[in-house]
């Protein structure tokens, strides 16, 4: 079963310069009990996509078309009250900066009990659940630490508390927006490992946003590559990382210094910059930076299947098929 099914979603922002088309016909699915990663560089539309899913969009954002189906219901047409009932229970989220996630003037225990306001449990039961959750994410001496304030915890611990809170209601979908970028490398591995274990225990799906290719490779089952507001490639992590079908994905992988074994004074880069999303060029969105550009690129490519379950928006796939 599919937990999240996004179809042809387009979102734009009203700006003084005109309409900024931040997402254009984005489609992707998150199957049950799976971890799907979204990779892309700044400006690819990752954040707009998340805000559209949880419907916490900027006031100047507008959904042009498309649907975001969560277990069959289109989130975009739900009433505000229904949407609010889903957030935190069925869909929850872990944000990027663990230092700013918590309320600094309330104890962690108080905050963890507050978010259970929907449940008809006694105070003691709620407190016990909070302690259990903290223990589950690996915070030692959980009972006692419930009485502490966020500043008494380190960044890695605060992010684990955020994960504990997000998973408290056993949601079906956890959205994690770069949850490890603010953390040190050794803590990053700890968090990733913990996320994987919890996902297994709780049986939820995770939509994991990151620009760190190594982390995606380590954690995710499937990956969606975004560029300038469009999905350019999607498939299993193994297919996409081992045989990337879109030139952008290929370039991105080549640029990752983790991939480069030989020492060099001249690292690969992607020349050029992302197009202006107010005045979009026609045709393929990556064409002006693509080393393999040819005549067909003047028209916009549709997603085509490179192999079963592995798709990319590139004209070259058709060319290779007919060749």
């Amino acid at each position, binding site marked *: 079963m599919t937990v999240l099914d996004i179809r042809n979603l387009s979102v734009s922002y009203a700006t003084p310069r005109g309409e900024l088309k931040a997402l254009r016909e984005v489609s992707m699915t998150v199957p049950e009990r799976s971890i799907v990663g979204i990779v892309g560089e700044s400006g690819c539309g990752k954040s707009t996509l998340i805000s559209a899913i949880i419907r916490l969009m900027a006031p100047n954002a507008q959904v042009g078309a498309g649907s975001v189906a969560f277990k069959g219901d289109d989130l975009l047409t739900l009433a505000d009250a229904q949407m609010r009932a889903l957030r935190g229970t069925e869909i929850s989220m872990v944000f990027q900066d663990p230092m700013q996630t918590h309320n600094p003037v309330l104890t962690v225990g108080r905050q963890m009990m507050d978010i259970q306001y929907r449940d008809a449990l006694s105070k003691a039961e709620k407190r016990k659940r909070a302690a259990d959750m903290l223990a589950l994410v690996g915070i030692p001496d959980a009972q006692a630490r419930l009485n502490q304030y966020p500043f008494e915890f380190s960044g890695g611990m605060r992010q684990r508390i955020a994960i504990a809170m997000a998973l408290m209601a056993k949601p079906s979908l956890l959205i994690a927006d770069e949850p490890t970028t603010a953390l040190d*490398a050794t803590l990053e591995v700890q968090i990733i490992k913990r996320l994987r274990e919890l996902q297994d225990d709780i049986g939820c799906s995770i939509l994991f946003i990151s620009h760190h290719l190594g982390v995606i*490779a380590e954690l995710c089952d499937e990956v969606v590559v975004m560029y300038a507001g469009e999905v350019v490639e999607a498939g299993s992590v193994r297919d996409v*990382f081992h045989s990337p079908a879109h030139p952008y994905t290929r370039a991105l992988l080549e640029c990752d210094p983790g991939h480069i074994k030989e020492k060099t004074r*001249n*690292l690969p880069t992607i020349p050029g910059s992302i197009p202006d999303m107010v005045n979009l060029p026609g045709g393929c969105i990556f064409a002006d930076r693509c080393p393999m550009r040819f005549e067909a690129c003047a028209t916009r490519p549709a997603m085509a299947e490179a192999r079963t379950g592995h798709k990319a928006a590139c004209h070259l796939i058709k060319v290779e098929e007919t060749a």
Partner: protein
Amino acid sequence: MTALLEIKDAVVRFAVRGGVFRSAGSIDAVSGVSLKIEAGQTYGIVGESGSGKTTLARAVAGLHHASEGSILYRGQELRDLPESQFRKLRREIVMMFQDPIGSLSPRLSIKSLITEPFRIQGMKDRDLDAEAKRLLAMVGLPPEFASRYPYQISGGQARRVGVARALALDPKLLIADEPTAGLDVSIQGEMLNLLARLQDELGLAIMIITHNLNVVRQITDRVGIMYLGKLVEEGDTDTVFANPRHPYTLALLAANPEPDPDAQLMRIELQGEPPSILHRPTGCEFHTRCPFLQPRCSRDVPAWQLDGAAAHRCHFPASWTGSEVEPS
């Protein structure tokens, strides 16, 4: 021959306040670091947040005062050097700060920003327009950028402006604090290529502070791994990466997942979090998190042990066989 920069047992100490008017003592953010940087060399300082790498860099640039030890630049002692004399040295030792946009004053144009060093150093005879043009060209930005303001440029471009400003006075030593943090991978490469090219052209030595091991492996000649204000492993970059000996170095390398789902990963995971430098552990300061802990580690402070082109401080150095970590 004297090294361009030689740091000997440097300590940077900060007073800690414990409550109102009560001094709780002091912490050593940098606690006895020794290293040498030769002219034209690239030296990488790696470590996690709070390991003291930025404090060390700032001490070299004269922005923090070293309490003990010595910092020698071409044999000249920098510690206790009065600010008026240090200012002259800032033509030769320059620092590039971490936050690219934040380190550029929002009210100055790019031209004013990159020619500010000439004004500060009282070099009034220079044609600032020509210098701005030369510096922008050097870092690969078009000349019309001179009239722009920081809010009009991207993060990657702001880094380039930072490089241009740092190199305005033709320095000998560039200290780069996290030069690639927050940049997309495709732009990271551009930044590192730029630094490498300028180093070749200008023959400058670079001290890079980073937590990104990939960056260090690609561009440095030597590397020092810092933990709680001390170096735990130090030496030739290729040697350290091929044969890391200190368990902390191994853990850092293991915590650097490769963009390959089938990659063979070094499975070594640290327990817990770094201890506070207010309460330093006894013996080897890494012992509270070390996966290969032995009784001796919490008692005796390990001494430096030379191992080929690198040195480490561990009683029981491990080795990486290519598929497994073997404790000794």
